[in-house]
């Protein structure tokens, strides 16, 4: 299945990934190859088959509803590219 440049641009926007104009053709072609591979699934009869979202039919482990982690705000903020007054800093979003 072919993927046109317009679809790639739309996907890039959805995924918030900048794709340069120069590489868009190559990306389209490679995406098309992958989709051609996965299109083999369409030939399989899956009527009545329950989708399997998880490999094991296990009940998720629960724990007590208690705070177990200490507040590590400073450590986590220290990892950020830009912070100010204890907050993450990003470009202005409201005029």
């Amino acid at each position, binding site marked *: 299945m072919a*993927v046109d440049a317009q679809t790639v641009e739309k996907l890039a926007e959805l995924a*918030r990934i900048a794709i340069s104009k120069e590489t868009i053709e190559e990306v389209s072609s490679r995406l098309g190859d992958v989709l051609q*591979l996965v299109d083999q699934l369409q030939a*399989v009869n899956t009527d009545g088959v329950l*989708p399997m979202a*998880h490999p094991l039919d296990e009940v998720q482990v629960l*724990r007590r509803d208690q705070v177990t982690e200490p507040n590590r705000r400073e450590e986590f903020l220290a990892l950020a590219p830009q912070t100010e007054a204890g907050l993450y800093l990003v470009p202005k*979003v409201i005029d």
Partner: protein
Amino acid sequence: MHQLTIAEIIRGLRDKQFSSVEITSHMLERIQQLDSQFNSFITVTGEQAIQQAAAADARLAQGDAPALCGVPIAHKDIFCTRGVRTSCGSKMLDNFVSPYDATVVENFLQAGAVSLGKTNMDEFAMGSSNESSFYGPVKNPWDVTRIPGGSSGGSAAAVAAQLVPGTTASDTGGSIRQPAAMTGTSGLKPTYGRVSRWGMIAFASSLDQGGPIARTAEDVALMLSVMAGPDNKDSTCLDRPVQDYTANLNDSIAGLKIGVPSEYFGEGLDSEVGARVQEALAAYEKLGAELVQISLPHSKLAVPAYYVIAPAEASANLSRFDGVRYGYRCENPADLRDLYMRSRGEGFGEEVKRRILVGSYALSAGYYDAYYNKAQQVRRLIKQDFVDAFQKVDVIMGPTAPNPAFKLGEKNADPVAMYLEDIYTIATNLAGLPGMSIPCGFAHGLPVGLQIIGNYLDEARMLNVAHQFQQASDWHQQIAPAAK
């Protein structure tokens, strides 16, 4: 000293033949001297390793030594390590120093192991050749013009080059077993949920599983005994007690029923690889096992199902890398949209971007049912094949990979050809089953892996089966030329 296995190192340390500081220093020197040929490490933590080794020596002297006390290991750079860069092979996390340890890392610290550093890997574990790392490709110690397999290629190459006796690794579609096969090492992907994923950077959460790579099945058993176990921090981790995986290694395998799937010996399998695997199966017959022909009729659909499910989960998991809270941020973003778009566009490599786009496509309105839902239905059919097979047999065996290690760059232009390198390993991830690869000979002068697939939580039996083969053969003792 670098030729010793983990089991031998444990004995040597306890018998005071050498200290942990001595063996750790020796391994660090080897890494410094030899690793420029292989590029198997991203970060070497020499100073920290010597401190850990000295602490281990003190515990050994007191007679208070836990299981792996003083044993040098290394972690795949997908596992978070407190105070040490955890890059996941990506420019996106090149500057990320983790503020905490993954549960697996903590387990090894508790067991007294000494970490020499972080091993190279395909970016975000996406790859079958270890060529997509931001830190450059890893080279195979058997032939440095060839790939070591991926995505745990750094972990496998470091073991094959005898830079470290054991490493942690992770397997989403074959990333422990395929590099183990291509480097002549032993690697095990446990049952999904047997080893905690907390602190292991997520690629595809329903498929990812951490596990060990070492030179022998016995060493893999020693490492798995430390890695495995319930974890309150990971709600998908199984709440079942952990066995001592070394306890049954010497059990007889007479009467073992080995399922041999016809689909694993067809078109696409290198004839020499197939011949080595058949010879291994014949060796098992000599040990008293019985070969049973079986069929896994949906196995040909594993690769297409995987390349919907894994990218779909990856597109969600990798949305956290947005340039805001940690990791790479582009220069001078014009606005928030530009910050996201350029940080992710510049921070991620080509394969990662491709998979995120495929995942976004599969999950987007209008395609969800046709792709994602369909793949999850096919996944159940694949799992049912295994459930049916394990009614008749104890383990399943076949090749780990269709080819021995290929040349660096050979498959870069054709991602689909690259994806097919995992054709025999992916189905077990989709089904959540444990799988293992052990060396079983050479094809075209390069190592070949025998894959052992086990039933759910049957790791102890798989390790027994692998160990018995290694007692009767010496493929696992062959040393890569560049390691000598």
